């Protein structure tokens, strides 16, 4: 299946809109009017429909099959959420309309905040970050602001376990911190003693993911939090894995100071081929005064939107008020599940991961077998030793069986890591089929049928792509071939 580029179908004459031509005898452009040509191809509506329908069919998606993707929580996206987000009362309101005309929007944001605060048992929430990494940035900014306010600007070190997501060190570095890695124990969890050893008066914070990226709940998390606080530092928790514990464990009870929540992972706002996300950050009482603008304040029978505070240390991290479209979806999702449903979803997510681990552990290698896993099952590739099949090959062979590959080579602390996160959305039938396929593939790899793997995928819209070539000689946009005329003339 091959679909030409839109520039190969359309031209500058064709258009899929009917707009009147207006007379602009006297413009008000002050001589800044366009002289250069756009050379922008257009499609009529029937052509556009086919182009995008056909292109879409080259994608894997949740609606067509499972994504056993560790660390990414690809769950069912209810269409009710999409419908609600499109109510004109939410989609057709402007961020700078008079506040008196958007009271329902502010009430919604307040309600979403209440859910997030209650589920996490924290003191404040900043809704505005545009994605998880943006939330991380904001959370670490709040920590920095708090320490500067205390006159502790000398705290320039951030502790990050080796198993952390790449965004953690990137965020810390972005804010000028020096990153000090914290090693993990052999069982895959962080040792409170190692943390204590790394703590010093120069440490600003620890950034810890819990459940961690190996799929394990940090059993010493409360002790770690205490040690960090005792050292005058803050505990930033990466909330990427909140799906394992929502409604079951409140991060505030563990001693966290800041945690971002990926609405697009945990609360099912759609992934959309890579965004938009939304990354609200909950904050402890110690950090609450350092939250950015804007935020909502209930005043008697109405809501106010606080957009400026003269003395605010942090300011704002985005124009306007954040990802309203995602707030609507997330709240709709929460109300549908209720507190009982969210807890059940977390438990089902954990149940599914353990089920997969149990069904596969005899054939796949489990690097950290000491604890039950949370919502992700971690394997490593030692079962592929001497098979001539790499982890990547194995993953690509999964494509031919109708599955998206699992997460590979992450966390970095495990050699040839294979991280599987089924989420709560998958039925037992699907899990069983997934396990059957994985076992069959593992057997085939061990049996020496490496060609099936090294040539995979063969049933996808494309064979393996040459990524090296793409990076060495980047072609980042379409250029008109010399022999292709500009318009159909």
């Amino acid at each position, binding site marked *: 299946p091959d679909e030409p580029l839109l*520039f190969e179908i359309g031209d500058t004459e064709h258009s899929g*809109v009917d*707009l*009147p*031509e*207006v007379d*602009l005898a006297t413009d*008000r452009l002050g001589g*800044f009017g*366009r002289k250069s040509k*756009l050379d*922008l191809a257009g*499609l009529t509506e029937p052509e556009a429909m086919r182009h*995008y329908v056909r292109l879409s069919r*080259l*994608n894997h*998606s949740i609606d067509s099959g499972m994504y056993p993707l560790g660390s990414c929580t690809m769950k069912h996206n209810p269409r*009710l959420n999409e*419908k609600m987000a499109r*109510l004109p*009362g939410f989609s*057709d*309101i402007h961020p*700078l*309309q*008079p506040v008196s005309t958007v*009271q329902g929007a502010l*009430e919604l944001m307040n309600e979403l905040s209440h859910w997030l605060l209650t*589920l996490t048992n924290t003191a404040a929430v900043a809704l505005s970050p*545009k994605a998880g990494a943006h939330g991380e*940035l904001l959370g670490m900014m709040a920590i*920095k602001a708090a320490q500067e306010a205390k006159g502790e600007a000398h705290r320039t070190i951030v502790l990050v376990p080796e198993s952390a997501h*790449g965004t953690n*060190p*990137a965020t810390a570095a972005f804010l000028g911190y020096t990153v000090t890695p914290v090693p993990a124990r052999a069982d895959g969890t962080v040792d409170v003693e190692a943390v204590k050893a790394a703590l010093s008066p120069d440490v600003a914070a620890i950034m810890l993911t819990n459940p961690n990226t190996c799929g394990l*709940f940090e059993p010493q998390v*409360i002790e770690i939090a205490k040690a960090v606080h005792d050292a005058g530092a803050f505990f930033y928790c990466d909330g990427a894995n909140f799906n394992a514990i929502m409604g*079951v464990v409140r991060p505030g009870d563990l001693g966290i100071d800041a945690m971002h929540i990926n609405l697009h992972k945990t609360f099912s706002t759609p992934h*959309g*081929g890579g*965004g*938009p996300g939304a990354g609200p950050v909950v904050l402890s009482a110690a950090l609450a005064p350092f939250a950015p603008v804007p935020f909502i304040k209930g005043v008697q029978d109405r809501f106010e939107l606080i957009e400026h505070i*003269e003395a605010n240390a942090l300011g704002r991290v985005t*124009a*306007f008020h954040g*990802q*309203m*479209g995602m707030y609507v979806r997330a709240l*709709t999702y929460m109300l549908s599940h209720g*507190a*009982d449903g969210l*807890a*059940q979803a977390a*438990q089902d997510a954990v*149940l599914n991961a353990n089920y997969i681990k149990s069904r596969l552990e005899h054939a796949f290698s489990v690097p950290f077998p000491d*604890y*039950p896993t949370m919502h992700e099952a971690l394997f490593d590739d030692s079962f592929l030793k001497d098979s001539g099949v790499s982890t990547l090959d194995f993953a690509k062979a999964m494509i031919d069986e109708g599955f*998206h590959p699992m997460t590979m080579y992450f966390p970095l602390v495990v050699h040839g890591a294979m991280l599987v996160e089924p989420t709560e959305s998958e039925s037992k039938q699907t899990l069983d089929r997934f396990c059957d396929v994985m076992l069959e593939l593992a057997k085939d790899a061990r049996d020496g049928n490496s060609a099936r793997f090294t040539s995979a995928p063969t049933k996808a819209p*494309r064979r393996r792509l040459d990524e090296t070539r*793409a990076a060495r000689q980047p072609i980042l946009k379409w250029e008109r071939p010399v022999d292709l005329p500009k318009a159909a003339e």
Partner: protein
Amino acid sequence: MRYLPHSAAERAEMLGVIGATDIDALFSAVPKSALRGFDLDLPAHSPEFLVERHMRALAAKNHAAGDGPFFVGAGAYRHHVPATVDHLIQRSEWLTAYTPYQPEISQGTLQMLFEFQTQVAKITGMDVANASLYDGSTATAEAVLMARRITKKNKVVLSGGLHPHYRDVVKAYLKDDPDLVCLSPSPEGQGDILSQVDNKTAAIVIQTPDFYGHLRDLKGAAEAAHAQGALLIVVITEVISLGLLEAPGALGADIVVAEGQSIGNALNFGGPYLGLMATRKEFIRQMPGRLCGETVDAEGNRGFVLTLSTREQHIRREKATSNICTNSGLCALAFSIHMALLGEAGFVRLARLNHAGAIKLADALTAVAGVEVLNDTFFNELTIRVSEPAAPLVERLARRGILAGVPASRLLPGDPGVENLLILAATELTTDLDIEALTTALAEELA
């Protein structure tokens, strides 16, 4: 529950396979004190029709832009989005696909991003564009950081005409940086930005049309910046203006960032929006965000992949160009589809319609006693000075069902110079009746 596929019997069977007595056995690593020892003060699960009733009640408490005359802009604009766009982006394979890290089963998203990058490069007149950032404001902050990396210099000068929220975001990203110079916002000009450029300057940041709607001279700015080895960053909050205004790339811009919401995306109370970023070819490796590139597959067929990811955090960790690990994929798709439907012919006509509407609006406002139009130039937005503070006036007009625009004081509180300023936008959706309703009401309120 409707989203959870397991029956109680299936859960029990699976626990049996695992060898766990109950679900709590799987949470054994959680300290006892933290495991469900609480009562959540939150409602229980609810049928779809009750959830819908609740959400509709909230939505009904808002005045939708379509409910009456509407002139609110200042960085977000109400345009018509073709039904085809919203239909297509809801298609399962677009809506529920993951980031295209596995290119063999993500060619739909990848080819779309390649087309998107091409469209953005074409309208800005730049060599390359990325696969989108969060929004215009954060894209501006990223552009400033990028310019510092490229020039290895630190001073950055922000025009006084830059959207105040954008300025605030840059300030937050560059916290307490003495090398950040924010020129004072004035309704008449952008401040004397060119005289600020010296040989320590990494970049100057100019918005056009600026916050007040004035069009700005990019060519002169580019020459002044380049003469000192500084870059020109151009910020655009109304991307449709590019249908009628000269491309920044043709005028010497080094980095162009824009808010792409106007094409394909609804107002959404401020988000999700779409950050556009385009630059010169030589700066690619300092550009943040995802990039999609063309390549071939094992059979030699054309295909697309995410590329140059050695800039990114999941590879480079603390040495990454940015901590960004998301783009605004679905908004980029909406933008790309809408732009494909427009094509050159439609994009230019749409821009002309917007400009024509703003001219009508300006002329009608000029005729109202107590109103002074400040702009000599504008695209689809302009600023007026009224004879009293604008904020309460806007409030009174809202009670009459007219959303009249943004009082400058909302974004620049405490600045007495802007207290009487009101910023109004017209788009292709603005009707003559809307303008008449506005001017009539304004005349009455100001009388």
